[in-house]
């Protein structure tokens, strides 16, 4: 007999009011269940093992309002352009405070067989596409944060890649939050469905303009069907006063291949729940991450990779750079089910502490039920290498530049995984701007070196010929 769940744990009526304001639709039952589930659980506390190092108490009692109706016309193109990257034009969807802005999006360049649209409206027009997947993967029963999003989301993106469609052109979903005079909360929701044998690239940017406190609670479900390839990036550049909670659930069918990158620069308190279910033989999942923190920023990357079928590979490769009083948390849980023989799971978490007040808690959690598997994990925490700094300085490089160069190099391995050149440039510029001596680092790229020197050679040889 199933135990009766308590009906309310939280007297958090902030959300129920907002829930009541939502219109009815075919998802009503799921939403109601999710709302009740949230009320039963309440926000997690540090007594919860999975939330031990990330305290959501500051969220309690903040009267988060719905964001004021905002149109993109209130935002200048310059303010938005800061979050764009070259090469995304033609497939860019803009969301302001979680709501799709058709007139400021450009989806003209989408190839045939690729749909990018407002999830809110697609729920009316494309129910048959959405219903089999929405809220079927990201589990609102287990996570209060995901439950709250499921109950309250209004909009976000539906990305659908038809069977056999192959495109390298990035699809950029830009979520801009404006904040405001009173604290607000937004609940973006994305659903990515990659049909059989398709190949696609999706970049999701979360960004804040203006100041003010707000909460982003976003959920992205990514479904990679048989033999589908998805290359996904989450670039988080929220305002400094932001709470950012995000849940990503990747579902992989047979021979599905998903790489998902988590690049965190902004926010005050950030928690990323990054989950994958490898549910078909031969699936491959790669989670790459880089957090660059300063002041009192806090980023908690919480990964759960579930190997349910044999012959699957997963890689987790997370790096963090922590300055000032910032704090990082990394939890990497790998589950290998009884059937999942020949699993190859690798996990690595490397951390660079730039200040004696910075902190990192890193924890692998392996649950291996099969007996013929390869699972490796490793974590490092270190500081900049004094010998390397001296070596660089002895060649005339200033101390600041030497430090920056080494930090840049440390981050390079993560940024180097980014396969969209223009996005990589953007991230490198962002990284340089964070470093004391950033400017001097713009004349070349310390990573990608194989290309770098070859480019110089080609360029110079060409000049000589002409």
């Amino acid at each position, binding site marked *: 007999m199933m135990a009766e769940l308590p009906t309310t744990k939280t007297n958090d009526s902030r959300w129920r009011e907002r829930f009541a304001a939502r219109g009815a639709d075919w998802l009503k039952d799921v939403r109601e269940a999710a709302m009740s589930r949230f009320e039963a659980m309440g926000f997690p506390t540090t007594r919860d093992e999975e939330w031990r190092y990330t305290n959501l108490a500051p969220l309690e009692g903040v009267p988060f309002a719905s964001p004021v109706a905002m149109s993109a016309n209130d935002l200048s193109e310059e303010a938005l352009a800061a979050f764009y990257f070259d090469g995304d034009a033609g497939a860019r969807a803009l969301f302001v405070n979680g709501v799709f802005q058709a007139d400021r999006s450009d989806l003209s360049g989408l190839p045939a067989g690729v749909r990018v649209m407002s999830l809110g409206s697609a729920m009316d027009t494309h129910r048959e596409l959405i219903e089999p997947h929405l809220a079927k993967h990201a589990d609102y029963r287990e996570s209060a944060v995901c439950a709250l999003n499921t109950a309250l989301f209004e909009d976000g993106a539906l990305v659908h890649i038809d069977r056999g469609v192959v495109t390298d052109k990035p699809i950029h979903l830009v979520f801009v939050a404006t904040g405001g005079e009173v604290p607000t909360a937004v609940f973006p929701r994305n659903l990515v469905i990659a049909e059989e044998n398709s190949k696609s690239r999706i970049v999701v940017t979360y960004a804040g303009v203006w100041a003010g406190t707000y909460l982003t609670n976003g959920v992205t479900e990514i479904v990679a069907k048989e033999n589908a390839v998805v290359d996904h990036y989450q670039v988080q550049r929220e305002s400094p006063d932001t709470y950012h909670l995000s849940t990503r659930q990747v579902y992989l069918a047979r021979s599905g291949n998903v790489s998902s990158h988590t690049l965190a620069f902004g926010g005050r308190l950030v928690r990323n729940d990054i989950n994958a279910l490898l549910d078909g033989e031969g699936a491959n999942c790669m989670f790459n991450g880089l957090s660059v923190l300063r002041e009192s920023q806090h980023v908690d990357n919480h990964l759960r990779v579930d190997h349910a079928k044999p012959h699957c590979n997963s890689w987790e490769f997370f790096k963090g750079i922590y300055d000032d009083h910032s704090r990082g948390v990394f939890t990497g849980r790998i589950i290998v089910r009884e059937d999942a023989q020949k699993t190859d799971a690798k996990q690595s978490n490397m951390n660079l502490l730039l200040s004696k007040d910075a902190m990192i808690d890193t924890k692998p959690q392996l649950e291996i039920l099969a007996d013929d598997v390869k699972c490796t994990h490793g974590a490092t925490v270190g500081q900049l*290498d*004094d*010998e*390397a700094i*001296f*070596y*660089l*300085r*002895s*060649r*005339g*490089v*200033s*101390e600041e*530049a030497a430090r920056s*160069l*080494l930090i*840049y*190099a*440390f981050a*390079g*391995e993560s940024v180097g995984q980014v396969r969209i050149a223009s996005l990589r440039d953007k991230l490198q510029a962002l990284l340089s701007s964070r470093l004391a001596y950033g400017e*001097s680092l713009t*004349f*070349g*790229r*310390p*990573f990608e*070196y*194989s290309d*770098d*020197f*070859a480019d*110089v*050679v080609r*360029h*110079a040889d060409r*000049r*000589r010929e002409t």
Partner: protein
Amino acid sequence: MLEIKNLHANIDDHEILRGIDLKIGPGEVHSIMGKNGSGKSTLASVLAGNDNYEVTQGEITFNGKDLLELAPEERAWEGIFLAFQYPVEIPGVATSYFLKAALNAMRKSKGLPEIEAAEFLDMVREKAAMVALDEKLMTRAINEGFSGGEKKRNEVFQMAMMEPKLAILDETDSGLDIDALRIVADGINKLRSPERSFIVVTHYHRMLEYIEPDFVHVLDRGRIVRSGGKALAVELEAKGYKGLLADAGETIAS
């Protein structure tokens, strides 16, 4: 050009250098020899500004400037170059990128604009050829996965790129086979000029057969106990440190 007076230096409160006096003129090649632990490498490190060592007494002037007042990079800008005994591996930083950064830092200190890509490339090719260093290593991370010989040749290559006024070679010969040693020594000889001075720190006479020093100094327990011409290296080779130091002891005692 370089004048060291009564130099004392510590590491972790152990006194390693105990009163070094040395004068080096433009274009001169001085060899510093001595047993393990005699203070040779410490002297090289102190000259380059490694702050693991604490200078407790004495002074160093370089072309009229107080060297001890300068940061390591400022010393490099003044024209001091140290070829490391153990070159540091720096993952993630491409050798070519680093060289360009270093070269541009040097140029900036002289008020020069950044180097042109084509000029840089020509320079890299020319200098790399000088020490038979594979150009492909430029695209790899600094010293990462380089063989012992490649690391040492990379040091001499960098020296050629930086065009220093005073080059300090800290056991550049150690770990090199006879062919590699010849290549490295040839490279160094090509860099000799009436303006450029060298300090060649070595254990062995072998290196000095290729690079003929003007002066040889024997270091023992943090002091120079014998100085002489290149004949001293030959004498040392014949007598060994023990024999030589026994003689030196007499000299000092008398």
